[in-house]
């Protein structure tokens, strides 16, 4: 693999690490299977693109994109919490609606950003080729995002959110307004995904309405695949697993692109993804007996054995 391809893989992997973190929040923390991301990713792209093309500061545009993503998450959560629509269904409804909304926002299916001022434009002044500077900047961003996420999940609010997903009834008994935390969590989750969409559009030169297809699959592959490699015993490890999973997924794609010698092509990507995710899901059940054996001696010997 050439250096450019390697750094390109890193670049895409880091952007989608934000998606993985967002999906982790909804899918794992809140136990809310959320397809909204297929809509909020291109929403972030659309909002930031249309604002940039109309002369707005790219950083402001990206921020607005995050807020838009949060809004999308709120809608899905509201449908579930207030109207009592099943979470998966609620997320599908929002995702479908977002397709039309994104088209409206963009005015056409593709808004080009090549040559426009983006959040990455200041990097060009550094004198380092952009294919190096962008991944480096993204790396810094992901570190900040991870630290922020870890702090958040370990805070009282974050812990309350984790309880909401783990045992809603008990959470309520502990004074946690579970409805509020679902709304908050979904907003945060989709804000992260929209941020990823905005960054992706700005690094790839365009916001395209088809960008969202399959984002949930990539997110889940990253979260589940990452967990198979890094056991998420603590919050620190869990978020690390998401980032690792996203990078792993992109490397798998890069492998597939370079594997013509064994006949693998980009077409086989979906098959590879499915295999990776399936293996990741099977791995825990192979691990469990091992884990149990190791943990057995931790049990207390006493009246309450």
């Amino acid at each position, binding site marked *: 693999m*050439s250096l450019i*391809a390697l750094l390109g893989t890193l*670049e895409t992997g880091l952007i989608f690490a934000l998606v993985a973190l967002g999906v982790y929040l909804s899918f794992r923390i809140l136990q809310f299977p959320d397809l909204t991301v297929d809509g909020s990713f291109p929403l972030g792209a659309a909002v930031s693109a249309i604002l940039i093309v109309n002369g707005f500061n790219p950083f402001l545009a990206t921020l607005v994109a995050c807020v838009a993503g949060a809004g999308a998450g709120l809608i899905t959560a509201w449908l579930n919490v207030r109207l009592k629509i099943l979470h998966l269904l609620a997320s599908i409804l929002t995702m479908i609606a977002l397709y039309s909304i994104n088209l409206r926002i963009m*005015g*056409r299916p593709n808004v*080009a950003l090549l040559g426009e001022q983006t959040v990455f434009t200041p990097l060009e002044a550094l004198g380092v080729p952009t294919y190096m500077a962008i991944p480096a900047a993204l790396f810094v961003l992901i570190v900040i995002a991870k630290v922020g996420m870890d702090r958040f999940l370990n805070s009282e609010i974050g812990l309350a959110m984790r309880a909401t997903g783990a045992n809603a009834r008990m959470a309520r008994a502990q004074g946690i307004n579970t409805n509020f935390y679902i709304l908050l969590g979904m907003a945060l989750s989709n804000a992260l995904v929209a941020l990823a969409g905005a960054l992706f559009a700005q690094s790839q030169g*365009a916001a*395209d309405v088809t960008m969202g297809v399959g984002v949930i699959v990539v997110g889940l592959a990253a979260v589940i695949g990452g967990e198979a490699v890094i056991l998420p015993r603590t919050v620190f490890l869990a978020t690390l697993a998401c980032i690792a999973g996203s990078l792993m997924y992109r490397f798998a794609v890069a492998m597939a692109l370079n594997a013509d010698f064994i006949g693998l092509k*980009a*077409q086989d990507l979906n098959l590879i993804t499915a295999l990776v995710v399936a293996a990741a899901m099977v791995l825990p059940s192979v691990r469990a007996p091992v884990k149990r054996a190791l943990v057995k001696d931790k049990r207390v010997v006493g009246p309450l054995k």
Partner: protein
Amino acid sequence: MNAFRLTAAALTAICVTTGALAADKFVAITQIVEHPALDACRKGVKDVLAENGFVEGKNLKWAYQSAQGNVATAAQIAKKFVGDGPDVIVAIATPSAQTVVASTKTIPVVFSAVTDPVAAKLVSNWENPGKNVTGTSDMAPIDKHIALIKRITPNVKKLGVLFNPGEVNSVSSLDAVKKAAPALGIEVFEGAAPKSSEVLAAARALVGKVDAFYVPTDNTVVSAFEAVVKVGIDAQLPVYAADTDSVPRGAIAALGFNYYEVGRQTGEMVLSILKGKAAGSIPVSGVKKMDLFLNVKSAAKMGVTIPDAVISEATKVVK
């Protein structure tokens, strides 16, 4: 002396061979999705190169990757190709092209099947793109469609355009019709059909207000095309289409193009670049070769006789 000559000959032979090896060209093609039209485009490129001496396996390295409809994959493909250092990168369809152009300012890029390359910010203008990018656009020549309508049925003064306002390409097509029509003395009327079940009603609503129907490449209306044909026959109004597949279904005429030809045009550009021309100096080209499809039977049912001159130009005539 003989030894010297032999060595010299051997060295020359080696130089020539390695020189020939160095002359191996490398063309990388990235396509957004597998699709008959886009695949035909790619074949067009390959065929033109082969016809001009660049054959895969012999003196041409040919790398093809499809992004399976996924823009993130297209981004990785773009980076991979840039890293592999080809002589030309061919990018088929807008998203693939955009991500390639974002990844390189030096490697020549030729796009194909991109409807509006200026709006896609791939080039700043058609005539003299300037940088490292050029290509072929597949924009439908709507002005030629309207001109055709005037040729076959010169008495048309009011044209009804049926479209789905939710399809962005249709809105662009409608705008193009509105731009081209006045010059030919035609007034444009809109018939909006947001769903295929509403196409019949939209067509009927225009009866009495228009002299003919035009259906752009709109997925919704085209899927309910038979309804439009029915109204056309009942009201004796000619129905024209933008895509050639609608002609056997009942449209009187359509001026279409095929993507294989677009690919060939693209191939010509790649050839120039491989021979040393700078990509930025090659103007962007639109579709040059077009096919005229006619349906004489349908025309008769709608009360129209197609002039013989037009019939003789047709690529295909449905009787």
